[in-house]
């Protein structure tokens, strides 16, 4: 339907694009990069969420500094290859991931992708609020207060009704993912051990066991999760990136992967003293348990940094994951979808994020809620149902009708197909092993 007055969403995006155009014309490269970064950094640091940081801490406490340091670098390199495809998809088509799936492959895959994402995200949001609650408990803050503040921050950021501001607020918060770096420094890791680990992929205490294989599967399976594909592509579209911005979009994703890998490795290093002291972490449930156990080794300040990092991890992930649910739901239902919308035009868009956030927060506060069952279901959904998401991504990025010259080249397809097939296969195996752990015995 033709409109006389431009929409607020278009006006705000056009304003952002004028700044980009000016910076490009004047060859202000750093300013241009600053204007165009965001989705890649947020998606990578968002994936360093509460459960991921607990997983990295468990890795450090179980294996110390060794095999998993270069392995984490490898998984983020794989994540970069996959996420870069979403940058090109968004910049070439100016459409989100969910709407492309729906429009190009029909309602079955459209509804499946959306339902898979929304259910998985809802359960993942619960685990993020568990991380916020556990991190705050370390400081003696009661769950009701920490969860309420978490809800206020997630929903408060949405009230900005401006993508660019929302993105910068999140980037400001996401910087605190690097709190794990000073925590790691306080653990006094050996530089030589870190270099040795990266060069030799060792040591690997205990050898290859069922627990080691499960951890490998979990790490690869969680390298890329469905919400990351949907979030980054939709954010690229909302930000207004075009085919001229692909290089900066790639740089954004690469920087995000690198910073996230540094934070992840720092978490391994921070928890490594528990390995040296033979502390059994198998009964640890949250980041707060690690912070408490680490206090004798990295001091009160280090443990506090660790707990604060856990709160940040849960908070930033809650913000990005709830946004990805909003984008996917509104795109599938052909409703307006942008963080530049006002509340009237974006009723469904904002309601999806707010309702899912309130639901997750309420679940965490219910005494006796089946939180462990939900955490397990998150792992199974994210890994077992990743294969269809990755196959559809590859089909879309090879669709020359919509991608034109930005479609995958032969070389990109070789790397992309190998990585996608690897992640999908390993993810599916991990999903099955999680459900039937006896298979690895």
């Amino acid at each position, binding site marked *: 339907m033709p409109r006389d007055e431009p929409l607020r969403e*278009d006006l705000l995006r056009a304003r952002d694009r004028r700044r980009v155009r000016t910076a490009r014309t004047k060859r202000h490269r750093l300013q241009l990069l600053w204007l165009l970064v965001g989705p890649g950094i947020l998606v990578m640091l968002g994936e360093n969420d509460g459960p991921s940081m607990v997983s990295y801490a468990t890795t450090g406490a179980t294996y110390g500094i060794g095999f998993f340091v270069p392995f984490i670098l490898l998984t983020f390199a794989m994540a970069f290859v996959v996420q870069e495809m979403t940058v090109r998809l968004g910049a070439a088509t*100016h459409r989100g991931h969910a709407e492309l799936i729906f*429009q190009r492959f029909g309602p079955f895959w459209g509804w*499946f992708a959306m339902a898979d994402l929304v259910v998985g995200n809802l359960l993942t949001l619960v685990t993020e609020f568990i991380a916020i609650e556990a991190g705050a408990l370390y400081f003696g803050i009661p769950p009701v207060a920490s969860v309420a503040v978490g809800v206020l921050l997630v929903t408060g950021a949405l009230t900005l009704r401006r993508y660019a501001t929302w993105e910068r607020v999140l980037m400001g918060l996401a910087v605190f993912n690097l709190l794990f770096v000073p925590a790691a420094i306080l653990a006094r890791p050996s530089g030589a051990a870190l270099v040795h680990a990266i060069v030799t992929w060792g040591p690997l205490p205990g050898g290859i066991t069922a627990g080691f294989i499960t951890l490998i599967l979990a790490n690869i399976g969680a390298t890329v999760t469905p919400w990351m594909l949907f979030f980054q592509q939709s954010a690229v579209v909302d930000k207004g990136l075009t085919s001229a911005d692909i290089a900066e979009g790639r740089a954004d994703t690469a920087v995000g992967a690198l910073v996230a890998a540094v934070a992840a490795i720092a978490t391994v290093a921070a928890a490594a003293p528990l390995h040296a002291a033979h502390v059994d972490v198998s009964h640890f449930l949250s980041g707060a348990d690690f912070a408490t156990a680490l206090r004798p080794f990295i001091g009160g300040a280090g443990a506090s940094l660790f707990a604060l990092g856990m709160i940040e991890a849960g908070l930033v992930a809650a913000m990005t994951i709830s946004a990805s649910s909003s984008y996917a739901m509104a795109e599938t239902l052909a409703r307006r979808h942008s963080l530049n919308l006002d509340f009237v035009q974006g009723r469904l868009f904002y309601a999806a994020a707010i309702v899912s956030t309130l639901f997750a927060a309420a679940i965490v506060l219910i005494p006796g809620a089946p939180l462990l069952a939900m955490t397990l279901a998150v792992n199974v959904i994210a890994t077992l149902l990743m294969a269809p998401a990755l*196959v559809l991504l590859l089909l879309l990025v090879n669709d020359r009708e919509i991608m034109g010259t930005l479609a995958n080249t032969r070389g990109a397809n070789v790397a992309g197909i190998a990585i996608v097939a690897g992640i999908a296969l390993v993810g599916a195996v991990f999903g099955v092993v999680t459900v039937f752990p006896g298979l690895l015995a």
Partner: protein
Amino acid sequence: MSAAGPRSDPLDALEPDQRSSVAERPLPRRKLGRGITWLLVGLRLYVLVAIPIVVYAFVHALTGG
């Protein structure tokens, strides 16, 4: 353009298909070759197997099994 004369387009910095009025028009359904059709059929079978496993995992964990 107004009666008072030409005025600059406030959306001139956007590519044509970035405008909401264009972006909200659905793309046509992709014509699938035989290979991709079979791939998607296989993927549907995978989903049919995977969903019961997900449900089983959740129910099993819920009942403390």
